């Protein structure tokens, strides 16, 4: 066990830091410090392309597909420096963290060559079409259908919670390609271009007043017959594999965002005197500890993953960060007091911390609710009996 880095790794850190500093104090100074995922979308695309150009977009990917073949330690270092430099969240995080690794694992050589470099170069932005209204976290309930017509797949149905769809070039869609099939059988994993008449993206307004998520409608949408990952009917397997990619090095970047949020809470507490309140101090200490434990938990998982071992602790990560952030939102409001409940002007748009309080209620829901996570932990990690489907007597 070792937490420190070698001199070679520290040299890599210096190189990454220097490049980031030059860009973010130079041509990309305008996106520095942004925390929202969606602000200034055009400049965010420029930034994605700039990262790709310089080989800093997907550092852990093979060089052949536009990556840098970076070791785990280097990936960790890059994530740290990226955040330290105030670089903005990645507009294409679904492409980088979900679509890319899934194509790498399940794609043909042609698919890899077609899609991966375009992601690594920051040229194609992705979103995901998983959830459906009425299906929630239950993937086996998918009702979106697709069928072959000539050299194309035709898609009909509706997805929901498709965040970033308004900025995306591609969406991956789980659709039922076997008529009459039920549950996890008969599903396929399709890659579909967003910019076509058969695809309509409609924003969903959230309790924050913003609209980060979307509903996406497929009404005779089309994609080339080759744009399927795995064979027809393999959709469930591919989708389950994908779940395993949700906990990569990007978690460390995410944690840097959490760090900024916690720092803002601490600053507010110092400013208004709540930092002296013993009850608030305890909760801030809990948040500090929780954040560190996310970091070291992630390093444990990543070290094991690099060695080819799955650390069952990985299954606990989603509920950990989602709950941590929800607690932080409540703490933020308790620190701000009533002042956090109003904003000048007529627009229903709150500053970062009150917005965190509202937004973080979604964290424990999307991407698998806390309840689904507990089922998964109990069943897969602890070996307890599966939750039965269907009617009970």
């Amino acid at each position, binding site marked *: 066990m070792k937490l420190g880095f070698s001199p070679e790794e520290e040299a890599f850190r210096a190189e990454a830091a220097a490049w980031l500093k030059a860009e973010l104090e130079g041509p990309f100074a305008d996106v520095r410090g942004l925390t929202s995922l969606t602000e200034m979308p055009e400049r965010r695309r420029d930034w994605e392309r700039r990262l790709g150009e310089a080989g800093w977009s997907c550092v852990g990917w093979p060089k052949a597909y536009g990556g840098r073949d970076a070791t785990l330690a280097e990936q960790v270092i890059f994530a740290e420096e990226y955040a330290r430099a105030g670089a903005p969240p990645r507009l294409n995080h679904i492409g980088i963290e979900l679509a890319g690794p899934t194509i790498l694992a399940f794609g043909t050589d042609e698919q890899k060559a077609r899609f991966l470099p375009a992601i690594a170069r920051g040229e194609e932005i992705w979103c995901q079409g998983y959830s459906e209204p009425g299906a929630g*976290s239950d993937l*086996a309930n998918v009702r979106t259908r697709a069928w072959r017509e000539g050299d194309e797949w035709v898609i009909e149905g509706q997805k929901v919670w498709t965040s970033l769809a308004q900025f995306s070039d591609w969406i991956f869609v789980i659709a039922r390609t076997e008529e009459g099939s039920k549950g996890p059988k008969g599903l396929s994993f399709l890659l579909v271009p967003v910019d076509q008449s058969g695809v309509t993206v409609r924003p969903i307004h*959230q309790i924050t007043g913003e609209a980060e998520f979307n509903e996406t409608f497929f009404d005779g949408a089309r994609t080339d017959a080759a744009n399927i990952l795995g064979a027809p009917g393999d959709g469930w397997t591919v989708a389950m594999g994908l779940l395993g990619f949700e906990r990569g090095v990007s978690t460390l970047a995410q944690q840097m965002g959490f760090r900024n949020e916690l720092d803002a809470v601490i600053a507010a507490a110092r400013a208004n005197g709540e930092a002296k309140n013993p009850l608030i101090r305890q909760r801030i200490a809990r948040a500090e500890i929780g954040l560190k434990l996310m970091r070291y938990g992630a390093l444990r998982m990543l070290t094991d993953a690099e060695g080819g071992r799955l650390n069952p602790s990985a299954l606990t990560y989603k509920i950990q960060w989602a709950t941590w952030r929800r607690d932080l939102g409540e703490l933020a409001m308790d620190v701000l007091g009533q002042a956090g409940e109003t904003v000048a002007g007529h627009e229903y748009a709150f500053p970062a911390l009150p917005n965190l309080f509202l937004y973080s209620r979604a964290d424990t829901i999307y991407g698998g609710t806390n309840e689904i996570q507990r089922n998964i932990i109990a069943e897969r990690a602890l070996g307890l009996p599966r939750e039965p489907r269907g009617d009970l007597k």
Partner: protein
Amino acid sequence: MHFAFTDEQAMIAETAKTFFAENATSERTRAAMADTGVDKALWQAFTGDLGLAGVAIPEALGGVGLGMVELAIFAEEAGGHTAALPLLASLGLAAPAILAGGTDEQKARLLPRLASGELVASFAAVNMGGTPGAALSDETLTGAALLVPHGASADLFVVAADNGVAIVERGALGFGITPLTSMDQTRPYARLDFGGVAVETLADPRAAVRAALTTGWLAIAADALGGAQACLDRTVAYTQERIQFGRSIGSFQAVKHRLADMMVAIEQARSAVYWAACAIDERSDEAAFAVHAAKAFACDTYTHCAGEMIQLHGGIGFTWEHDAHLYFKRARSNASLLGTPDWHREQVAGLAGLDEAA
């Protein structure tokens, strides 16, 4: 000793329940949210047709002459629908302040108009809710009050200043009202600025503030109770309809247990609210303890239940379109307004004798 509604109280509860269910609909509330945070037709119906606004105001002053139990009953039912009404501001805070601290002339002049709903009042408390302070000097008020509930739609303000309690009328010279966009749009706040405004003062400021806070705390606690119960009822209904993994989600034991925990808390909150209401009405020694307990417990319960409502509804519970966020935001407003649960518990700790010598 009879700790259940009398027949008359049960009738009031039934009336209030039906009234709010029929009138305080989501559509109307949302229309009010986009406007001033007051459903004016609802206010008219509540004060006029129903005639319940003066429930806790003596009959001689135009009210119904009942007490805190009845006030809690309608605050609970209004809370059950996050009704967009200035109930708390006008009847839970301003009216009791005038009733307890006003001169006979002030009471006779103002309370009948509050009871009839013709006049809407609000209340600004010094040293609570971030008030930066306001001071009286020669019947003139200077300073500011932040976060005054329904401040932008009130006609009259009872302002607890550093050195007295003033009555300020909308439109007075030097008096500025700034509406604020508020997280809970059904209870919007406003900022008040007093630039040497000529005011009248209340005769007994101490009694006025004590009555306003006591009644306000109770009204908030009752609102929280009604809100929490609505969160539970709606979530139970949803979990019975909603099918996931081929089963109603209400058949999952973890969901059942969490709904049960909500009920356990709500039943305690109910005891707290009506205990406090009775204790105030009966001038019991326990009244102060009870109302702090009710404010702390009912608000925590509401916070918990509204959070669970969103969580157990899944994605839909997080949309603007669903009502869950109205409860969630009202719960926050209730918890932070006029003393947090921690602050009220600290008062209980004092009353429990923790500061006495060993």
